[in-house]
């Protein structure tokens, strides 16, 4: 659709069509649409305005920036805000135009310009901005300080420092914010003076200190920061930064001051505050936090993953297994966090208590409980975990199997064998089989050989898979028998795959037979096994004539990767006569093994409507030409 048609659609009565047209104008990135889009920022329909803002940002460039700039003077605050957003969205291309406003008499517009430049972030502008630190308007001075901080202009530090004594508190605050990111440790004493004052500057000064104070400042900083009048107003994030910075220097008195604040903030509504509080508690490693933590663990309702992870770490860091078990016994809610933490602690004395909970908890908590028993490990956990192989929930049975594998006691083998026979779910069966095969040994091999006689095809498949994995030579005859005789195609297929673990002429003959089987999946399995053999080329080349496109596709790819000789002619035939996926594979293969003979055929597909084919042909020609030149 041409741009004039799109513009005509802007008059449609259909609001969806209008909005889509605006979006298309942005997508075309045609600067002819700039003026129209600028007008649409004033449209009655908010969705149109929204689309126009996005479209102008998409078009970008100095022209769009120039068209939007006059809107900074608009009486309507929404229009001004949108134009600020557009200019920031345009980014670097808008800098020159916006910089021209730095001599502006209109102080509001001047401030907007400073803000925009700060958000675009061009450090080269510092020399233009610095003089504005002395502007008569405090909003301009503040905005300039903040912008210099954002663009990381360290040479401006000396010019920002005098603003610490500015008569306007907001300017002082902004200067502190900037110095927090730009300043150096020699400012510490100055900042400590500011902390002693009241007002919003205190918090900004503390924040700045947490960033730029040096390790050598530990004593003087901590003594101020841990005082009651300061520690109680500190944002949690700032406390955490101080604790991180000075962890070696924090003694009991400092720790208590911070801990009281951190534990108090655990009940904050804000998620980030709670997480930061937990981080701080972990860093302080102070056992006196345990009561507050446990109270929080019980009170919190469905904590998100990150909070749960932090809480668990905190409990493990400051708690004892005795304290956690005591709380577990007294309060049935929020158990999973405590159980998880106990697992991490690895104290085997709690196994009996954990066992007693197994029938009282829901599925998800049970899974955590089993994992914790596994982490505690060894004989004391074994019985409970193996009982869970009979749990009514499949997820629990799966976890139990995996945990038995981790514990590694061979007495699990017959239990897993029994469990797998009764298991109704495939994924749980597979997990159990994986665990069994990790045990290895004759006993395990016998289990899988016995499963070959199961009535359930799924179990026969699993058995074959594991016998293949274990490379059980004595199962060879049974495997070959399955290939020819089993009634289930999936079983036969798995048996074919098993052959990759057996060498010898007889297996090659079997694979050759399978290449003529009517089941495509068996033929694919056979070619995949042949691919792993050094003596498979002849059979693979024969499979290039298979009736199924995906068999041919795979074979071509395989032969190419094997750099098989003598197949160029065949590949050219496939390139010219087969379906697109095979053509693509053939083109790529010719790139590896082809000669000048193939170039003419490949050239027919340069610029083909299918981009995969066209690209493959072009790349192949390049590869052949490059080989010839060498």
């Amino acid at each position, binding site marked *: 659709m041409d741009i004039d048609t799109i513009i005509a659609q802007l008059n449609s009565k259909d*609001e*969806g069509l209008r*909005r*889509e047209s605006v*979006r298309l104008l942005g997508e075309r990135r045609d600067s002819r649409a700039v003026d129209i889009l600028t007008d649409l920022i004033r449209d009655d329909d*908010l*969705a149109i*305005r*929204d*689309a126009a*803002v*996005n479209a102008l940002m998409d078009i970008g460039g100095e022209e769009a920036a120039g068209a939007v700039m006059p809107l900074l003077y608009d009486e309507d605050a929404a229009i001004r805000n*949108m134009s600020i957003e557009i200019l920031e969205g345009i980014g670097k291309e808008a800098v020159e135009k916006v910089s021209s406003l730095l001599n502006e008499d209109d102080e509001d517009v001047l401030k907007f310009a400073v803000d925009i430049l700060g958000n675009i972030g061009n450090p080269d502008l510092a020399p233009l901005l610095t003089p504005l630190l002395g502007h008569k308007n405090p909003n301009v001075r503040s905005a300039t300080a903040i912008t210099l901080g954002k663009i990381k202009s360290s040479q401006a530090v000396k010019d920002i420092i005098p603003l610490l004594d500015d008569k306007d508190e907001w300017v002082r605050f902004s200067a502190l914010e900037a110095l927090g990111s730009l300043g150096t440790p020699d400012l510490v004493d100055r900042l400590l003076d500011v902390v002693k004052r009241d007002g919003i500057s205190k918090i900004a000064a503390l924040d700045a200190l947490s960033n730029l104070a040096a390790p050598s400042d530990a004593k003087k900083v901590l003594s101020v920061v841990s005082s009651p009048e300061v520690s109680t107003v500190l944002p949690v994030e700032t406390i955490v930064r101080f604790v991180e910075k000075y962890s070696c220097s924090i003694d009991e008195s400092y720790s208590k001051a911070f801990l009281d604040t951190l534990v108090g903030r655990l009940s904050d509504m804000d998620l980030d505050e709670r997480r930061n509080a937990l981080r701080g508690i972990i860093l302080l490693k102070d056992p006196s936090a345990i009561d507050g933590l446990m109270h929080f663990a019980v009170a919190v309702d469905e904590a998100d993953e990150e909070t749960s992870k932090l809480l668990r770490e905190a409990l493990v860091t400051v708690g004892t297994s005795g304290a956690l078990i005591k709380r577990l016994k007294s309060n049935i809610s929020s158990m999973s966090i405590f159980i998880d933490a106990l697992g991490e602690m690895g104290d085997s004395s709690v196994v009996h208590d954990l066992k007693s909970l197994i029938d009282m908890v*829901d*599925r998800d908590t049970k899974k955590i409980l089993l994992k914790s028993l596994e982490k505690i490990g060894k004989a004391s956990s074994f019985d409970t975990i193996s009982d869970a192989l009979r749990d009514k929930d499949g997820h629990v049975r799966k976890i139990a199997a995996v945990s038995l594998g981790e514990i590694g006691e061979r007495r699990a083998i017959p239990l897993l064998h029994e469990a797998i026979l009764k298991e109704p779910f495939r994924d749980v069966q*597979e997990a159990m089989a*994986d665990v069994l095969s990790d045990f290895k040994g004759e006993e395990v091999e016998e289990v899988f050989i016995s499963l070959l006689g199961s009535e359930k095809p799924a179990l026969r498949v699993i058995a074959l*898979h594991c016998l293949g994995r274990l490379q059980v030579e004595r199962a060879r005859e049974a495997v070959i028998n399955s290939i020819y005789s089993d009634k289930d195609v999936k079983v036969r*297929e798995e048996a074919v795959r098993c052959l990759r673990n057996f060498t010898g002429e007889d297996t090659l003959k079997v694979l050759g037979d399978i290449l003529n089987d009517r089941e495509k*999946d068996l033929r*694919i*399995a056979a070619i*995949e096994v042949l691919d792993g053999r050094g003596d498979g080329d002849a059979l693979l080349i024969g499979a290039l004539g298979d009736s199924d496109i*995906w068999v041919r*596709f*795979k074979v071509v790819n395989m032969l190419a990767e094997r750099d098989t000789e003598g197949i160029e002619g065949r590949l050219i035939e496939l390139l010219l006569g087969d*379906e*697109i*996926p095979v053509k*693509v594979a053939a083109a790529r293969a010719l790139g590896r093994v082809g000669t000048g003979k193939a170039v003419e055929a490949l050239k027919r597909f340069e610029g083909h409507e299918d981009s*995969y084919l066209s690209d493959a042909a072009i790349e192949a020609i390049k590869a052949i030409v490059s080989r010839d030149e060498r």
Partner: protein
Amino acid sequence: MERPKITRDIFSQVRDFIYEKCGIYFGDGKEYLLEDRLSRRLSARNLSSYEEYLFFLRYDPKKEEELRALYNSVTTNETSFFRDINQLEAFRTGILPKIMERNSSRRTIRIWSAACSTGEEPYTMAMILSEEGILLNGWKVEILASDISENVLNSAKRGVYGDYAVRNTPERYLKRYFTNNNNSYTVKPDVARLVRFANINLVDSLQVSKVRGMDVIFCRNVLIYFDDHGKRKVISFLHDSLVKGGFLMVGFSESLFSITRAFRPVGIRKCVAYQKI
């Protein structure tokens, strides 16, 4: 049991394909997630690499069928009845009265649960409205529930749930609106009939354009699948589906800030709803 690995190049191509088809975006570094989601599809189609899978999606005669299976695989369906109770309370006490006031002459409420997964959300809406006595007062309730995944829609239509799905359901709702058969909970017919299910891809403008005149749209915990471009697209389509003054509710931890300016955020009981002006 081992599964194929996805290369960086093929990941980009598969990612772009999925994005083009349904707007779901897998960011850089999410190769493991895509592998995890798609490995079963490879097994099901007996393919040994993700490149083969991509070719299958593009060229095989069964590609449309596979596309539906793909949608089922890439969407996460974790949900429950009465999820995010604060938002539901905001809807019940803040939004519903406004809608009823506005629609007092035609006495119809139309709600869309976009990305309904296995149906817990739309059925929850139906129960809340039933509990408010709205149907008894002669109001008509139409709840449209849609999802891109056919599997979950089929499950939703059956209306049968286990313990886990009803874990947040208040006792009186459990007793009044479910039939309990040995910890298998079935939604009662008088609730189920209020909900109509449809297969809708939220980035398909043609499909979404057929949904119009909605008073409230719930689009919770689905925007996370999309990048900013995709989010803007979906939100603009949903905007068109709402009546003027209608409300859009997104996930509790989601925000439309930097995505759209076409709605006015409205604070209701510590939740934010977005109103079409």
